[in-house]
């Protein structure tokens, strides 16, 4: 379920006034939720922030339970043994502090050494807290940076004089970033930017501090909570994966079929063309993040291609994975694009200037978001503030994703040229690396474990910290699989985790990226699992399938691997067993396994 009030640009007043109703409606919507435990450690009042955060998370399909520190107890809660927080076992910790929590400010007469000392003391206080939280709770930590101060004692000089509050907070923020750059699982919530974007004067209205001990304007809470929710949904694999873009009046001004390629508004000659060019550059920049670009346009294909090849276009045809330019309904093209990419429609964002087209697509394809992008000069801001692609980790695979999907399209063409599927598989010249988890791939493994919905037997989610613990635990068998073929490197595409109990190995997690479906990679993983089990004297592999709204494709997966179904309950949960005899014959015949 997607609630319009909660999509950017959201209706702040409706959210604040109707949070209870929105909460009830979201919970009763029948949507499938992932449960997550969120601890909020606050340096000021946090109750409203928590309530609105819950709404945004529910809208993202995450049902949170909360631990909320007592007023201004963030430091005590973090630094001292805390049985209730330990029992809560958070999946993520959000530290909501603000410049109200700075303990000592520089005085104008202070020496440079004194000011340096203040920076160090303040930073050490926070670092001590982050280090302890990471060591005790092994979960992602989200930390506010500092918003700029309410007033500037020295006016503009406050920015560069070491005694100025602006300078001091800027330096503290830089210390926070240095920690973030060198510590995984630590994320900054950039309230410095969010408050500037909102308007610092409004954000910092002292009324709310003196009256309620809120460190920000109550009306600004949705903007803060939305940003926190975006970080959390990104951590748990709920980012969008690509754009589906209209052309006429979206990527250029005018209607190319009517106006002709030379007369569309694009390029430096006039203001409208400049605005569309700026938007094209913004969209194209997303490729660097691995965001997939696709076209869904009502146009003759030749016209669409001519527009993409316009002399001032930021794009070439190769920038797009799927180009659907025809006269079919847009929702049908959208669904076809999702299918070709092996993605769920809801993982793609629809960008179209026409509200009627947006309506059709969002009505026909539930869960798809199509922001009301406004005028061309507003497209960038609207899309950017929507947080579709909030980046928490940037793996090598993200950087190469467009390449990989384009290779997939080439594979599909090759496949069409073979009569026999196994001939096709052999022609791909595939090789795989399958090994226990290694530090270099932990970020990608965590990402995959949180993003895989379809080829996922148990839909168990792991944070990176949990994966690291699992990999280090001698009772666990962990395997990642990396697949390369003649078109390129697919990166890590499959992960298996099993725990050994006596003579049995229970498979806790078995996932595979849908971009390598039907490549026999699952057989290669099975072979590797069987060998790892044999090496430990395991006699039996036990598999579980837990149905969700999305993983129907693997209901009979274990059967296809040669397992025997031993039980099934009323919900469709099934248990399977595989007896490991003395000799195990490899099931994979087409992928070369590299040692």
């Amino acid at each position, binding site marked *: 379920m997607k609630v319009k009030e909660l999509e950017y640009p959201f209706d702040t007043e409706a959210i604040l*006034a109707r949070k209870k*109703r929105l909460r009830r409606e979201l919970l009763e919507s029948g949507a499938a939720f992932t449960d997550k435990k969120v601890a909020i450690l606050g340096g000021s009042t946090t109750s409203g922030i928590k309530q609105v955060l819950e709404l945004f998370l529910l809208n993202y399909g995450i049902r949170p339970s909360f631990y909320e520190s007592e007023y201004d107890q963030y430091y005590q809660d973090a630094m001292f043994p805390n049985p209730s927080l330990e029992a809560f076992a958070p999946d993520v910790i959000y530290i909501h502090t603000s410049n109200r929590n700075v303990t000592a400010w520089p005085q104008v007469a202070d020496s440079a050494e004194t000011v340096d000392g203040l920076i160090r003391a303040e930073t050490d206080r926070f670092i001590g807290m982050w280090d302890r939280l990471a060591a005790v709770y092994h979960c992602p930590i989200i930390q506010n940076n500092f918003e700029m101060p309410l007033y500037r004692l020295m006016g503009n000089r406050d920015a560069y004089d070491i005694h100025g509050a602006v300078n001091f907070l800027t330096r503290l923020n830089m210390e926070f970033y240095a920690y973030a750059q060198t510590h995984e699982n630590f994320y900054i919530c950039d309230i410095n930017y969010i408050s500037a974007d909102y308007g610092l004067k409004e954000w910092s209205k002292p009324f709310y501090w003196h009256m309620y001990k809120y460190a920000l304007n109550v009306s600004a809470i949705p903007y803060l909570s939305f940003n926190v929710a975006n970080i959390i949904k990104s951590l748990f694999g709920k980012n969008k994966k690509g754009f589906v873009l209209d052309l006429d009046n979206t990527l250029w001004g005018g209607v190319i079929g009517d106006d002709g390629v030379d007369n569309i508004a694009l390029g430096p000659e006039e203001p409208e063309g400049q605005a569309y060019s700026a938007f094209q550059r913004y969209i194209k920049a997303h490729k660097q993040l691995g965001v997939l670009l696709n076209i869904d346009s009502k146009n003759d294909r030749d016209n669409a291609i001519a527009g993409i090849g316009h002399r001032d276009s930021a794009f070439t045809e190769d920038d797009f994975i799927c180009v659907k330019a025809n006269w079919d309904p847009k929702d049908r093209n959208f669904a076809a694009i999702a299918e070709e990419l092996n993605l769920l429609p809801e993982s793609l964002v629809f960008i179209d200037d026409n509200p009627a087209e947006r309506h059709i697509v969002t009505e026909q394809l539930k869960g798809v978001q199509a922001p009301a992008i406004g005028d061309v000069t507003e497209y960038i801001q609207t899309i950017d503030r929507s947080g579709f692609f909030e980046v928490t980790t940037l793996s090598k695979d993200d950087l190469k994703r467009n390449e990989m999907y384009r290779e997939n399209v080439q594979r599909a063409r090759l496949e069409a040229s073979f009569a026999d599927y196994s001939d096709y598989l052999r022609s791909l010249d595939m090789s795989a690396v399958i090994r226990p988890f290694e530090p270099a791939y932990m970020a990608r493994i965590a990402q995959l474990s949180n993003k895989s919905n379809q080829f996922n037997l148990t839909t168990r989610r792991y944070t990176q910290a949990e994966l690291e613990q699992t990999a280090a635990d001698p009772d666990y068998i962990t395997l990642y699989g990396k697949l390369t073929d003649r078109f390129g490197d697919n990166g890590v595409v499959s992960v298996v985790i099993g725990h050994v109990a006596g003579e049995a190995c229970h498979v806790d997690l078995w996932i595979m990226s849908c971009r390598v479906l039907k490549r026999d990679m699952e057989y290669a993983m099975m072979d590797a699992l069987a060998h790892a089990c044999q090496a430990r004297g395991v006699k039996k592999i036990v598999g579980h399938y837990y149905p969700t709204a999305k993983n129907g494709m693997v209901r009979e997966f274990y059967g296809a691997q040669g397992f025997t179904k031993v039980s099934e309950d009323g919900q469709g949960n099934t248990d399977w067993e595989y007896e490991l005899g003395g000799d195990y014959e490899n099931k994979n015949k087409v992928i070369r396994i590299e040692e």
Partner: protein
Amino acid sequence: MTRAEVYERLNGVFRDVFDDETITVCDETTSDDVEGWDSLEHINLVVAVESEFGIRFNMGEVNKLKNVGEMADIILRQLG
């Protein structure tokens, strides 16, 4: 705006904030009469009333509110 019109809109705000379609407030209504009206929800209520009527309560007013009647008085005074 008449006092009756203020009350009609106040009822809407209370019903939204406390998610209860049966609430009807009057001059004598206090936080004891409405389920869920604690000090934290009071903040939400005040902000919702402010945005409904396009007014701002000052600190003294928020602190001294004893019942809904006083809230209506302030709204009428600010709108007047």
